[in-house]
């Protein structure tokens, strides 16, 4: 495993440093090409997102000068960059990549975007030929691990911002948000953010009411919505399924009697009030009505906190999955490392066998088919017996740290010329799986 990874992320480097390393999408192919042309690098690719820039490579000897590549490529003074860099090799590099793909290294743990970004970076590098056999199998595994983490833990299932919790709650009430109307009462930053989230999930239209009518018009225009005069609030509010309220009123502006009116006019279709005002705009009494669901800022915050805690717990389970997957991957790669030597040993001995049979055939005269079969069986039997011990030794050495030494010894003993292994051809099914992934 001669994997090597270097990079910066939101934890290791401030935004100013990350900005200097960020690579626009259009320049990624060139960067990948430059990377593979750099001394000591066989394959390489770059992941560049707003929170991280990472260079992942498969090197010729496990010790490529990736720092040098970064300094040269980005024209950055080592003193400015090096303190923020992290670098991983072999098993640690594999582990880091698995964690990144599974979104365990993200700023918001469990967010789904990163996997898509890694897949895009992989596709770009593959298209320019910077990713071939070795990185191919590493990334195929990383995507499978990310999928496993997502399906076996709920690390990506719950929201961690008030606006997204509000959207999730709305979905628990209404199912799809398509065609639902939103009413913003009191034009504030937070309600605007919540409304933006709701609109992004398919809500149809927005009404805005504010004490200052001009501000209502301003906000309504942003969403292509409709401004409502504050005095018309109670007559129009029932047109909305979701009400986000954040006025500075000293008392509740929505009381039980209003809720009853709304429900009567809506034929009891449910309404969801997101009350982010302090003091609250919706009286607790109104929230008790069947069909009215009220969440105030504390309720939403509580949901957020609980989700963050849940994610942390789930992240621990996800880490355990990553650890076991890294072990499995390492074992697999190491076994694959000895495969070319085994194949070449088999070829070598088979050539000798054939040559020896041909050499003595003339001396043996005409052979009956039975005799041919007997000679074939005899010579094959000898070869198999001779090969048995070296092959089992190679296979068991593959799992130990001494694998390289044993491979070298076998090569020297038998004078083997090992052809480089074309991994991309090996796990054909796996490659297809990755290729078809959206």
């Amino acid at each position, binding site marked *: 495993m001669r994997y090597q990874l270097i990079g910066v992320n939101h934890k290791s480097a401030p935004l100013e440093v990350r900005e200097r390393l960020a690579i626009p999408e259009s320049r990624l192919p060139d960067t990948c090409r430059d990377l593979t042309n750099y001394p000591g690098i066989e394959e390489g690719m770059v992941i560049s997102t707003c929170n991280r820039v990472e260079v992942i490579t498969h090197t010729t000897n496990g010790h490529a000068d990736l720092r040098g590549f970064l300094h040269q490529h980005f024209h950055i003074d080592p003193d400015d960059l090096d303190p923020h860099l992290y670098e991983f090799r072999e098993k640690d590099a594999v582990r880091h990549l698995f964690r990144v793909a599974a979104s365990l290294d993200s700023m918001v743990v469990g967010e789904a975007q990163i996997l898509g970004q890694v897949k895009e970076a992989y596709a770009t590098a593959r298209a320019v030929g910077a990713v071939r056999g070795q990185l191919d199998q590493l990334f195929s595994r990383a995507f499978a691990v990310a999928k496993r983490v997502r399906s076996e833990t*709920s690390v990506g*299932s*719950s929201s961690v911002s008030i606006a997204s*919790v509000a959207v*999730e*709650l709305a*979905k*628990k*009430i*209404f*199912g799809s948000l398509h065609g639902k109307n939103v009413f913003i009462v009191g034009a504030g930053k937070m309600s605007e953010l919540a409304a933006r989230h709701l609109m992004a999930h398919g809500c149809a239209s927005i009404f805005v009411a504010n004490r200052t009518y001009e501000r209502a018009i301003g906000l309504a225009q942003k969403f292509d919505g409709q401004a409502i005069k504050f005095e018309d609030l109670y007559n129009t509010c029932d047109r909305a399924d979701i009400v986000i309220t954040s006025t500075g009123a000293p008392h509740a502006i929505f009381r039980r009697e209003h809720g009853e009116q709304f429900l009567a006019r*809506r*034929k*009891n*279709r*449910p309404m969801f009030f997101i009350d982010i005002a302090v003091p609250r705009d919706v009286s607790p009494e109104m*929230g008790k009505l*069947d*069909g009215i*669901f009220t*969440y105030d800022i504390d*309720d939403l915050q*509580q*949901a957020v906190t*609980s*989700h963050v805690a849940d994610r942390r717990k789930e992240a621990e389970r996800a880490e355990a999955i990553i650890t076991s997957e890294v072990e499995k991957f390492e074992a697999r790669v190491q076994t694959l490392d000895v495969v070319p030597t085994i194949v070449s040993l088999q070829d070598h001995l088979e050539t000798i066998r054939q040559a020896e049979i041909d050499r003595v055939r003339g001396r043996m005269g005409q052979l009956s088919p039975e005799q041919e079969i007997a000679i074939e069986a005899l010579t094959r039997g000898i070869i198999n017996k001779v090969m048995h011990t070296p092959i089992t030794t190679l296979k068991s050495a593959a799992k130990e740290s001494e694998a390289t030494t044993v491979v070298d010894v076998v090569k020297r003993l038998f004078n083997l010329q090992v052809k480089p292994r074309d991994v991309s051809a090996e796990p054909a099914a796996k490659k297809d799986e990755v290729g078809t992934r959206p």
Partner: protein
Amino acid sequence: MSLLWLRFALGCYFIGLVYAFVALRRTSDLFSRIAFHAASMGMVFHFVSLTELFLSGQVVWASVHNGESLLAFLSMAFFMVIYAIYKTTSPGVVVFPVVFFLTFVAAVDEQPVLLTAFVSNKGWLIAHIILIFTGYAALVLSFGASLLYLVQERRLKSKNPTSLISFLPALEVIDQIGYRSLLLGFPFMTLGLLTGSVVALTTYGRVDFLDPKILLSVLMWAVYMVMVFTRWNSGWRGRRAAFLATFAFVAALAAWAANYFSAIHRFAAS
């Protein structure tokens, strides 16, 4: 042989029953998938059992056990239709126990309990049974949905953060399931009662409205109608709808139980 298939079906439905109890406590995608496949398998066995019964020529539609088996099958069919539309197994929480119970009763007792009266018009009788049972099946589902609606409403009102990861579908989806089942079941129930009246008229020459079976059936139909009307007219849902649905369900059970007291719709061991 038909009974054997039914017992296989019962085994599959048992997994559904276990799911129903587990799903109330915690969410498990895997278990819900297992339960769904088991229930589908159960339906296949059940279908084979009913078909075999029908093809054997010994079908006794007016036998209590065959009726129970048919009702269980129709309830499962409704459940599957809902699954096809909404991709949720949660109505199973109510449907599976009912189906299991009905299949259990139908599968354990070999003594056919038959309608005592001699019915001359077999066609009307079969129509009556199928229509009324479809209506019952829809009622079971609508009852289930209204209970789930209550559970989901409570969860959302409790503001407990775990409500967000509850196994139940969205409140409006549950509501739609209940309402659509109600709307679909109503014409079947109405036509079922009408065909029943025709059967009674041809057999006895009159319909005795004071007979407990008929009285309770009409009561159940009336509650059913009130449910459809209040929902359509004022959008009743939640507690009030659940109350009505429970009442209709109890009336349906009572109407079924009335088979043992009715003079004209009585079953007895053969």
